[in-house]
């Protein structure tokens, strides 16, 4: 019987769960920089690293190839752009002198564990993987070199990751045949995993880099979407156009559901009063119901969100723990509105007044 009584709360429960889901999506979009920054920092093991920005990545890579033996024995990474099969213009990270997993790569999942130790291994981002044809998923040919795909780079449950549209390969496979096929006129970056000024200077001299080194604690990350979000007016425009309307649409639905639920219960509580129920008894019943509702809504919302992260579904992504507070507060807010108006109704509506009003 009590369970049947709860059926009338299904619409409002659904609407609040919906607004919570919308909030998770919004938070995820607005906070997308956080996971990118975290991933950019994660592969830097020393406190800081040196970064050189170069105008022509093809020239840099050709110089590295020609002067490899004169470069200090430290790990370094080159980032540049090129077409890879089924994926136009991707970020390519080439890691040289990698020693015992010195650079901990964020891995979403391993596809072929046997390939991890191979020199021709590669890790691709999830968007790159999604675009690859079945044939290319078995192995990629880049600049005449064959690469096997050992795993997907990134993090489970992160929809906007730093490595989503990139490929990570290793210096052992790079030779002059590879570098002669790199596109011209694309800027690139060189990261040296060392804080030693002598080593940094040696790189600069051997590779004839004109620009000065920037000492940084993470990889630089900038793509079209980032540039778009970094622009303040574009960002506020994005919030106004995309985020706010979505929230308002669902909030209005929640408001209407609440209004009609209060309307519907007005008669029910009047009848209860007529048959002798006191305000205290009715309020006790309301409080029990809202506690159940609150628990139910939060469990379902967090269940859906965590499930989506665990199963790596592109539906609801990871959010920072402190953002869960918004969900708890938001749910409490909507339920509080319902409770306050219902309580006012319970105290204000007396059977005699109601009949007078109806008359």
């Amino acid at each position, binding site marked *: 019987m009590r369970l049947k009584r709860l059926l009338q709360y299904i619409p409002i429960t659904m609407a609040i769960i919906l607004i919570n889901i919308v909030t998770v999506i919004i938070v995820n979009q607005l906070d997308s920089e956080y996971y990118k920054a975290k991933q950019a920092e994660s592969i830097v093991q020393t406190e800081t690293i040196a970064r050189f920005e170069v105008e022509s990545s093809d020239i840099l890579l050709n110089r590295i190839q020609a002067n490899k033996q004169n470069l200090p024995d430290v790990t370094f990474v080159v980032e540049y752009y090129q*077409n890879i099969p089924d994926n136009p213009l991707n970020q390519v990270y080439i890691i040289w002198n990698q020693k015992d997993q010195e650079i901990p790569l964020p891995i979403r999942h391993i596809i072929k564990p046997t390939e991890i130790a191979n020199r021709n291994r590669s890790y691709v981002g999830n968007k790159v993987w999604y675009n690859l044809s079945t044939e290319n998923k078995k192995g990629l040919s880049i600049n005449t070199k064959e690469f096997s795909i050992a795993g997907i780079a990134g993090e489970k449950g992160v929809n906007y990751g730093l490595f989503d549209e990139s490929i990570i390969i290793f210096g052992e496979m790079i030779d002059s045949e590879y570098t002669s096929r790199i*596109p011209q006129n694309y800027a690139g970056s060189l990261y040296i995993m060392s804080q030693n000024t002598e080593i940094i200077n040696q790189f600069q001299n051997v590779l004839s880099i004109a620009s000065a080194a920037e000492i940084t604690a993470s990889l630089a990350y900038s793509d079209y979407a980032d540039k778009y979000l970094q622009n303040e007016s574009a960002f506020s425009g994005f919030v106004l156009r995309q985020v706010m309307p979505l929230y308002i649409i669902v909030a209005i*639905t929640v408001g209407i559901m609440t209004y*009609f639920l209060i309307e519907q219960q007005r008669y029910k509580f009047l009848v209860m009063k007529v048959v002798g129920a006191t305000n205290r008894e009715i309020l006790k019943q309301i409080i029990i119901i809202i506690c159940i509702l609150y628990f139910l809504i939060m469990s379902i919302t967090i269940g859906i969100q965590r499930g989506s992260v665990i199963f790596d579904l592109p539906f609801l992504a990871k959010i920072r723990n402190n953002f869960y507070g918004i969900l708890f507060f938001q749910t409490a807010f909507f339920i509080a509105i319902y409770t306050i108006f219902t309580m006012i109704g319970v105290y204000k509506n007396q059977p005699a007044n109601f009949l007078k009003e109806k008359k």
Partner: protein
Amino acid sequence: MLIEQSILLMIKRPWTTLLLVIQLIIICFQMSGCYLMIETIQTKEQILASLTKKDETIINVQAIQSREEIDGRTRRDTNQIEQLFEKEKIVANKFYLTGGKLAKADYPPIPTLTKNYEYIQNKSELEALIVSEPLKGEFIFTEGENFHESDFEEGPAPVILGEAFRFVHKLGDVFEIDMSTGGGIGKVQLKVKGFLKEKTLQPILTNFLAYSTENFNNYFIIGMQKQEHPLFYAPSYNIQVSDMQYQSLQPLIYELNESRYAISDEFSHKKKERSVFVQQINVLITQLVFYLFIVIMTYYILAFQIWRNQESEYLIFKLIGGTMKFAKSCFIGYFVGIWSTAIIIWQGIALFNDNSHNGMITIATITLGMTVSLLLVLVKKRIN
């Protein structure tokens, strides 16, 4: 009487009605935005479909002049690269890149992508490509045809234009371009030879063509005999190739004696843009389904509650001789009232902002959502 009753129902719940109208207006804007985005993706798909293979692109090989060649005004020797293309059986279109200015009346309305191009177009300026032989490869014409050898001999220079120019010219029209600043060869008389199809990737593509408009509709290719003029000293070549061919061609060009050629991929940026959009298409469809779900859910609950609240009134109405058909019509009239108010306001705002695309499909989706919700209520009531 019916309209009166429906309006009365709207006035009876002013706040609910107002909120519903606001909600529906926002949904209309969001939905039409989704449809517009899907349409844009379809245009990009259409451009991509004009490529023979999925991994094809268009690359540009540009001969670079040394300082001495520029100062001494000497022609760049390009025999080696042309022999290389011949040896590799590569079809290349050789052209000279320049600019020009048209009379206002000869300049078509071309929607631009960025402010920079808008600035150029406001001054009726354009990018012109000069070729000295008929175009090679699969060019697709809407009207007219390719150059013939005889076209280069005498009379006005033949010109092949993008489809945007059909607004101001027709085949055979003669007009003038001023290339005093762009190419330094003064004013040239042109005769329209053909129009290249828009939203199609033709085998000639420059950076300007790739970025100036969304539709690839502003081609301006002039056929002209080679002259002893600096404009003709350093040619560019456009080649339609696969990524693999592009990668193999690069070292071969580097290996040429004193190779001074810049090779760039002119279409990959567009392909990238398209692939990002294609990934967004699932998000857009999810959004559309979400809005439809919101409409159905809101109006189902609303209609159900309103019917329940009004039921006693309808029964009294029936007792005094009214028909239930009329009562139901008043009930549906209330929702039609909300629907029409929202649609009128939305269309008014959209027209004011010159943004009234995809109106019909949006209205159809909203109507479908509301009809489904009302039908669900009526069916449920009938079953009960």
